[in-house]
């Protein structure tokens, strides 16, 4: 017999109102403006844009406010929002070579052309709590150099390419289709375009742990941070009705070029290989982790034995998405009353059977 159970409407309605009140906190404290989040919690906003796979600072800030600072919930809100909009098309690939950097470092070449530009970084801070920030009213000003940075900074890879010490980067045929996991489900083995898209929107914590695992020996590939750059690039698009490229504005991106060791194979001499990370906003940890995992996922292509989780395409690509993961884990909170009843009946039955067998054995 199937019994439909209804109820809980009022409880749900009241729970949502309680959520709203709790979200607001003490009314004596001024309400948070989303512009404050955009300006002062920039890295949280950037992370939500990246994992929400939607570049829109205002919406990401709104999502963070709505989710009470739960960044995975905020990414979920952006993913849901994007499904309400039509896609006009795809932009031209961004030219990160022309990035107007605020930060650019290489840990492989000290005297990299263009220099080591530290930018707004936590590196070299002492990680001591700064109690002066607890008081309002600070207006720090950054020093200004009289000489600006060089317009285009060369890529680190270019330096090694000249000597053939690193694998070449092969551009694709301009008209080749680009895999899109928001339109087609992933086929295995997945091409690098689909893998990179998956990683670009993947959970930072998951990718960080996987990247870390490769460093600790689970699929070791001896990484160096060849280059990390953070800055602004123009976004170009060719509207069909115009027939020529126009700029839609600028987006902030973080790019990481990881340089890894490679022993060589029957076909290829020993040379360095690459892992690549490109993420919305200022997201260094994520871009670096992405580059480590991208390189690890190239194991098969480079003739390496797949032995570690980070090298396993299905394991990585099926579990990297925080929205999918949270959906499946958190659905366990929903009523499973009937499921559980059937399990209960089953276990009771098994215990009775088991008891009978034991009783018989004792006789």
């Amino acid at each position: 017999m199937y019994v439909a159970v209804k109820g809980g409407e009022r409880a749900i309605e009241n729970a949502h109102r309680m959520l709203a009140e709790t979200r607001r906190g003490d009314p004596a404290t001024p309400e948070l403006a989303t512009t404050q989040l955009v300006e002062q919690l920039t890295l949280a906003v950037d992370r939500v844009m990246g994992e929400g796979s939607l570049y829109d600072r205002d919406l990401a800030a709104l999502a963070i406010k709505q989710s009470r600072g739960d960044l995975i919930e905020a990414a979920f809100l952006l993913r849901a929002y994007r499904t309400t909009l039509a896609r006009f098309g795809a932009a031209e690939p961004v030219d990160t070579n022309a990035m107007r950097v605020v930060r650019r470092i290489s840990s492989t070449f000290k005297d990299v052309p263009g220099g080591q530009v530290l930018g707004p970084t936590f590196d070299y801070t002492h990680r001591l709590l700064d109690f002066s920030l607890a008081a309002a009213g600070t207006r720090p000003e950054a020093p200004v150099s009289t000489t600006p940075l060089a317009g285009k900074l060369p890529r680190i890879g270019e330096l090694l390419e000249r000597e053939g010490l690193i694998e070449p980067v092969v551009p694709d045929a301009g008209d080749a289709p680009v895999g899109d996991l928001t339109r087609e489900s992933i086929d295995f083995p997945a091409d690098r375009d689909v893998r990179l898209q998956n990683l670009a929107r993947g959970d930072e914590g998951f990718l960080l742990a996987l990247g870390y695992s490769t460093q600790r020996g689970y699929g070791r590939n001896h990484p160096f941070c060849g280059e990390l750059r953070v800055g602004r690039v123009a976004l170009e698009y060719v509207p069909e009705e115009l027939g020529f490229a126009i700029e839609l504005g600028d987006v902030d991106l973080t790019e990481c070029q990881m340089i890894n060791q490679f022993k060589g194979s029957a076909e290829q001499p020993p040379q360095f290989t690459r892992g690549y990370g490109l993420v919305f906003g200022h997201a260094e940890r994520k871009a670096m982790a992405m580059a480590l995992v991208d390189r690890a996922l190239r194991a098969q292509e480079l003739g390496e034995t797949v032995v570690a989780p980070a090298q396993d395409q299905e394991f990585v690509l099926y579990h990297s998405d925080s929205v999918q993961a949270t959906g499946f884990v958190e659905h366990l909170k929903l009523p499973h009353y009937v499921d559980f009843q059937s399990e209960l009946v089953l276990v009771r039955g098994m215990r009775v059977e088991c008891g009978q067998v034991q009783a018989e054995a004792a006789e």
Partner: protein
Amino acid sequence: MSDRQTKRAPTALADRQAWLGTLARAPAAALAEAWAGLNPKPGYRCVRGPETGLIMVRGRAGGTGQRFNVGEATVTRCTVALDDGLTGTSYALGRDRERALYAALFDALLQDPARRTVIERDLLDPVRGALVAKESATARKAAATRVDFFTVAREGSE
């Protein structure tokens, strides 16, 4: 309309690309102010939009290799037709529809050589100036964080 068309000088593509890029980055207030300053204002109708949608942002593996999708961005576009026959189009990141409308109107007006000089002077030049100044300030602050290495001579070395 045909009168206007014959009078119109062929607009160089590069010019239009440049002003569309500037209009896409112009602050909404600057566009609204410039529109308010127009006298007389042209009649127009919206052919499409203003409407908000998505553009897929793409990168290349290794910076120059295989293309891949990074994620989408919100974009708002608009196409207008002026009563005198010129049409204007705008595309810009974000969700500001009013801004998209003004940008499309100015794209149409800028194709009219008789109006272009004034709009260049009153709208585009100040906007470009502000954008360049802001960028330059950021670049100079970043430049101040560039590391100057110096070598410390080892003790006992010559």
